[in-house]
């Protein structure tokens, strides 16, 4: 038997050790930092207890990167940052330099190469996002495209620290919401029950698992045209799309019926208030590639109302908490509808059980 034909057994390394890849100055001062400040937008300055100082220059990327873009980042890291770099959870590239003199030339090089410098402090950071049409098997929209279109429009807010507090935006291409919670979240919201291809269900779907997946028990087994399939009680169905991943013949998406919704006030940090979920403010926006102008308009109206009106250090949700939802809808010009009132389990906890009224 040809030995070379045997498959190679993997080395189960697990999580790679970061220390061989970490900038030497970070490694030397690991766990021994003292304080930091921000000399300008896009630059962090950290001082270690040893007295060592490091300046970090943060730049936005497109997340889905071709090898040429990654090699360009490597060239820049070799020239300025001793051959090391890191990424933030929001796909920003960070270059650590050991002298303040290097920051301005580094910023120039990044800008020339098309990477905007910013995303620090009270700015809008890169939008965290999902896969979309490029790679997902259940997407209602594209993710990279929405993010590119929005970040083009909101570029100034990335490169400047002019917001009351940090702004974290997310997008998601289905209601599973892989993009996560955000100060502003742009998520697909389906509007029609799935259309079932009864010819395929029996072969493709594990029917009991699909029935069990439905949050409102709207799916039941049925014989359709002599074939075992599934049927939907369309009066019960609230169009969440939960059945679609385990059963692709239950197509939830439609070019017209897949809409976008905007949610606000999500927060992960524990600073001041406890973490919060984002809340629905607008649905029914058209899924309009390549630049989704209707979404951009709503996002900008909310973002600039917050920028104008919130007090220092208030996050989006904390600002709305203070001014009240009536004023939020008034300032942004958005409609408050019956669909804003939560009727899911525990939804009554979101209702106002007091005489606290905003006028």
């Amino acid at each position: 038997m040809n030995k070379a034909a045997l498959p190679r057994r993997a080395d189960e390394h697990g999580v790679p050790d970061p220390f061989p890849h970490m900038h030497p100055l970070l490694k030397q001062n690991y766990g021994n930092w003292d304080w930091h400040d921000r000399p300008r937008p896009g630059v962090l300055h950290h001082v270690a207890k040893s007295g060592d100082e490091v300046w970090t220059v943060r730049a936005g990327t497109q997340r889905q990167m071709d090898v040429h873009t990654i090699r360009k980042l490597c060239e820049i890291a070799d020239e300025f940052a001793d051959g090391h770099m890191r990424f933030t959870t929001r796909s920003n590239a960070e270059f650590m330099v050991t002298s303040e003199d290097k920051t301005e030339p580094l910023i120039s090089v990044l800008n020339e190469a098309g990477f905007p410098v910013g995303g620090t402090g009270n700015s809008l950071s890169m939008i965290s996002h999902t896969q979309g049409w490029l790679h997902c098997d259940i997407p209602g929209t594209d993710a990279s495209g929405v993010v590119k279109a929005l970040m083009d429009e909101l570029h100034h807010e990335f490169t400047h620290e002019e917001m009351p507090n940090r702004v974290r935006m997310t997008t998601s291409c289905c209601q599973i919401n892989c993009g996560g919670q955000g100060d502003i979240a742009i998520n697909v919201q389906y509007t029609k029950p799935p259309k079932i291809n009864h010819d395929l269900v029996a072969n493709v779907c594990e029917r009991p698992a699909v029935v069990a997946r439905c949050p409102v028990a709207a799916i039941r087994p049925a014989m359709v045209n002599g074939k075992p399939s599934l049927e939907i009680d369309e009066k019960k169905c609230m169009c969440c799309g939960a059945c679609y991943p385990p059963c692709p013949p239950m197509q939830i998406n439609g070019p017209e019926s897949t809409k976008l919704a905007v949610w606000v006030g999500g927060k992960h940090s524990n600073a001041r208030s406890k973490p919060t979920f984002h809340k629905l403010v607008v649905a029914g926006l058209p899924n309009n590639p390549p630049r989704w102008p209707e979404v951009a308009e709503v996002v900008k109206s909310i973002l600039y109302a917050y920028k104008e009106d919130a007090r220092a250090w208030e996050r989006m949700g904390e600002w709305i908490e203070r001014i009240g939802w009536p004023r939020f809808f008034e300032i942004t010009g958005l409609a408050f509808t019956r669909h804003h009132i939560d009727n899911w389990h525990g939804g009554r906890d979101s209702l106002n059980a007091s005489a606290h009224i905003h006028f």
Partner: protein
Amino acid sequence: MSKKQHDTPLLDELEHGPWPSFVTGLKHLATDEGKPYANMMTDLLGQLEHSYETRTGYWKGGTVSVFGYGGGVIPRFSEVAKDYPESSEFHTLRVQPPAGLHYSTDLLRKMCDIWEEHGSGLIALHGQSGDIMFQGCTTEKVQEAFDDLNEIGLDMGGAGPALRTSMSCVGHARCEQSCYDEVRAHRMIINGLIDEMHRPALPYKFKFKFSGCPNDCVNSIHRSDFAVIGTWRDDIQVDQEKVKEHVAKVGRKQMIDTVIAHCPTRALSLNDDDTLDVDNKSCVRCMHCINVMTKALSPGKDRGVTILMGGKRSLKIGDQMGTVVIPFMPLETEEDFEQLNELAETVVDFFAENALEHERVGETITRIGLANFLEAIGVDVDPNMVNHPRTSSYIRTDDWDEEAQKWFERKGVAANE
């Protein structure tokens, strides 16, 4: 010779504007003369343009894996392969990055070289669970690509009903607010449970996330089943001279408006001499004042972690934040880390044996109640686990004295320690 490019008028619109364009990157790959991936990327662009035109996705899943592992590859087969044959298979390899997302350019270049040889040349840094996503590989090339990535020290991440790739914040490497060694905790727990990642056998996904302080930069409370968040239990460290400098710089009004008034538990007060009065017993370690006054204030010295469990997004019972399960666990010594590791193993074992199919641990906790969950994993109840005690009278209390006795015994033991 490269294949003729498809017309992509809609995607072309995304080449304009100041933000870096992924479309320009895709086109660069599609027109790389003589590269093995050029034709694949040409048809990928064609299919993506078709999605933009028709507002419909065209990928379906399947089964692809590497030798010895059950997960980590996300298979994608095109439903429109007839029109775009070269990208008919476009699988992703989810690969775990170094903890804290630190890279040497040497590692990044090797990743590029491997992906240029075996894949599409397209790499996403990073996915929402923290994976390096090597996007675009044929079924035939998946094993070779993985072998080469594995040779340079990288390993497959999680997918499906399994332990998932984890994330930790920059933490100890560059942040003075970090309260524990995130890299150590992250690698200890994930590498100890790595079999659960590589050979999926859990009821559903299970995610750990590691944040060095309550600012929670990796979004662990909502986005993980097991959130490890750095904190401290002694007093905030205050450098009063630097507090005075801060007040002198920004003025009393701004100091009061942006620091004192934002304290969620009214634990701060500005003294007449512009020093800070901290009521540490009322402080909940929210981080706000420390975030604003980075030179004057820092976390205390008696450090450890708060652990929350059960965070998740909507499916199926609705969104859930994690719930406090361990209000404080010291995390400095070898024994402390061992204790954390044991807790992680206990919880994953309990989840594996007791969760229903497709149930996250947050849903298990909701289904059986937190008190039963705590009993199962051997953790005592604590008032830090609730916003307030129950408001419903629907509870049987005939063993009240016995339960109260447990509390007094624990308090007695703690008082004698």
